[in-house]
């Protein structure tokens, strides 16, 4: 992971990025020196006969529809992509994998690219909802550069269906002005939410994490589908519900305006909140919880398939991916991208918690996605 192995050094890349952001250099200059222009050239090389951006646009179409998660991209990257290819990226935001699965099952989602989490991919393959990826159309994807742990869920029986976007954890963000310090266990989260922090806590609108962390509170597995353990979790959640500020996966607004004091929180949201408001800290629950990795995949019925490949390929370009990471604060499993990121980000305890904390965490299990009891439990909790 030396700087020399990349087309531009970490330091130089960041300098150029600041200059571009300050407006002291043009977009064209920025693309040129950072190698983004080259990335585009590689892309057009992979698609023969395409030379200029506008000419390519005719082959790629004029849009790509991306279904992704809240606060998960650098909008400026989409603008650059449009400049280069003529393809406009239409972003749809979702708060749970169940919601994404439901849309794809219903058909006619209109999505070209979506961002499933590790444990859901096998179900998509079984249900014949996503297509095997043609890796030759993703020249910027280098499988060897990725840590296997965060990349292997995308490959099923030797076929690549999804390529890694980011990884992260699900922990607790808390505003220390009100909570008197970092909340670092699910026990204090759920007990405090019913007591001194009543009306101030948020849980995800997402069965995996909301039920999972309630299970962890009792010392059960995050992924349990055992009826008696789920009954424990349901009792806790129903008990907590009247005390919650909200059930939502878009929890940054509530934390930022001070209405909410603590929330279930994904790594990058924790980082974004902490950067802007240092009083908001992020910690993992010491009992355990979730570690996850997200992927880019293409639905079977994607209306703009070529634009989908172009978009994924673009977002996997190390220079683009580095800008994404700087904006959203989620760890990247790609060593080429990490070589471009500032050291302090790679040492950040929010992004990279201590190993012993990580070892208590579990990856989501495929069974939780389709388990009817978990689905109905979540629905009962919300409608209670």
């Amino acid at each position, binding site marked *: 992971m030396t700087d020399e192995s990349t087309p531009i050094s970490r330091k130089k890349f960041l300098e150029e990025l600041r200059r571009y952001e300050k407006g002291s250099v043009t977009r064209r200059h920025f693309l040129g020196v950072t190698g983004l222009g080259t990335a585009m050239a590689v892309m057009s090389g992979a698609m023969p006969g395409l030379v200029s951006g506008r000419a390519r646009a005719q082959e790629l179409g004029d849009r790509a529809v991306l279904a992704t998660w809240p606060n998960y991209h650098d909008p400026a990257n989409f603008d650059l992509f449009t400049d280069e290819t003529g393809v406009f990226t239409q972003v749809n935001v979702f708060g749970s994998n*169940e919601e994404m*699965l439901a849309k794809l099952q*219903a058909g006619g989602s209109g999505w070209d690219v979506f961002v499933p989490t590790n444990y859901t991919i096998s179900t998509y393959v079984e249900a014949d909802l996503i297509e095997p990826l043609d890796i030759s159309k993703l020249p910027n994807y280098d499988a060897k550069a990725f840590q296997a742990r965060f990349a292997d869920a995308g490959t099923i029986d030797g076929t690549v269906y999804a390529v890694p976007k980011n990884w992260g954890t699900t922990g607790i963000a808390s505003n220390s002005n009100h909570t008197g310090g970092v909340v670092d266990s699910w026990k204090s989260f759920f007990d405090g939410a019913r007591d001194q922090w009543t009306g101030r806590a948020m849980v995800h*609108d997402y069965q995996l994490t909301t039920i999972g962390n309630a299970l962890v509170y009792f010392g059960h597995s995050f992924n349990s589908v055992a009826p008696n353990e789920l009954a424990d979790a349901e009792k806790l959640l129903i008990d907590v519900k009247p005390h919650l500020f909200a059930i939502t996966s878009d929890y940054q607004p509530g934390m930022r305006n001070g209405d909410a004091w603590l929330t279930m929180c994904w790594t990058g949201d924790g980082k974004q909140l902490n950067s802007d408001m240092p009083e908001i800290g992020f910690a993992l629950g010491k009992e355990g919880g979730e570690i996850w990795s997200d992927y880019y995949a293409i639905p079977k019925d994607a209306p703009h398939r070529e634009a989908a490949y172009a978009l994924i390929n673009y977002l996997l370009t190390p220079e683009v991916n580095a800008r994404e990471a700087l904006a959203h604060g989620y760890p990247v499993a790609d060593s080429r991208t990490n070589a471009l990121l500032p050291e302090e980000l790679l040492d950040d305890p929010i992004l990279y918690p201590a190993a012993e904390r990580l070892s208590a965490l579990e990856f989501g299990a495929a069974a939780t996605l389709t388990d009817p009891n978990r689905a109905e439990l979540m629905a009962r909790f919300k*409608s209670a």
Partner: protein
Amino acid sequence: MALTQKQTRWLLLTPAGLWYAALLLLPLAVVLIFSFGERNAVGGYAPGFTFEQYANLPARFAAFRNTMTLAPLGTLAALLIAYPLAYFLAVKVSSRWKTTLLVLVIVPFWTSILIRSYAWIFLLGGRGIPALFDWVGIEGVRLINTPFAVLIGIVYGYLPLMVFPIYVALEKLDKQLLEAAADLGTPPWRSFLQITLPLSMPGVLTGTMLVFILLMGEFLIPAILGGGKVFFVGNALVDLFLQSRNWAFGSAVAVALVVIMLIVVTLYGRLARRFSVGRDDVGLM
């Protein structure tokens, strides 16, 4: 070439008939069939014939209870605010200003209800109206993500739909009746109760019915201003189809909602007719 009366009737009814058959009756039939089915292993629908989904309806009791509380409350609040406004517009305003003021009532419709509801998040959030209360010394006011916030959103969103039917009814009011009453020494409050109010009842009934029926199916405002905690039947339906993927149960909940709505609307229509004896134009119920 003159059309026979029968041909004319067919010509007039065919477009609407086709529209309703394809986009209302057919989907309703599908929903009815699905409601007797089962949930597929990965979610969705699996064919079957079972009453299990209907037996499971009590699991959504809270959603029905919330809808059946907040829909009538919202309708009543909208009526109490809309009636004086409609009366003012129809009776008190000079014709010079009337058009301008009526346009102002419609202006909110120029912006999507979604965006207007989002604006309420900021108004009702900690830095909005509660901060004002704080400033004048009333602390601890919490509005956003409460049933009251949903009620405010509902009344705000549906007010114009209540104002217009009442306005139209009051506008048609024959002022000579009021003058005659005054000549005969009737005090104004009495002529309001005995003349104006009864004659405006058709507008009141149309307005309340319109707002109430739409509120029964509401899901957007509770989702935005209720923080995922104030759940209507509409939210339960969205959840069953778009999250927990139990189409069969979702269909049963939808059928139950339609049945409840039909019963309530029929009863209300009957009641309305009794209160407006001798008036034919209430027949639009």
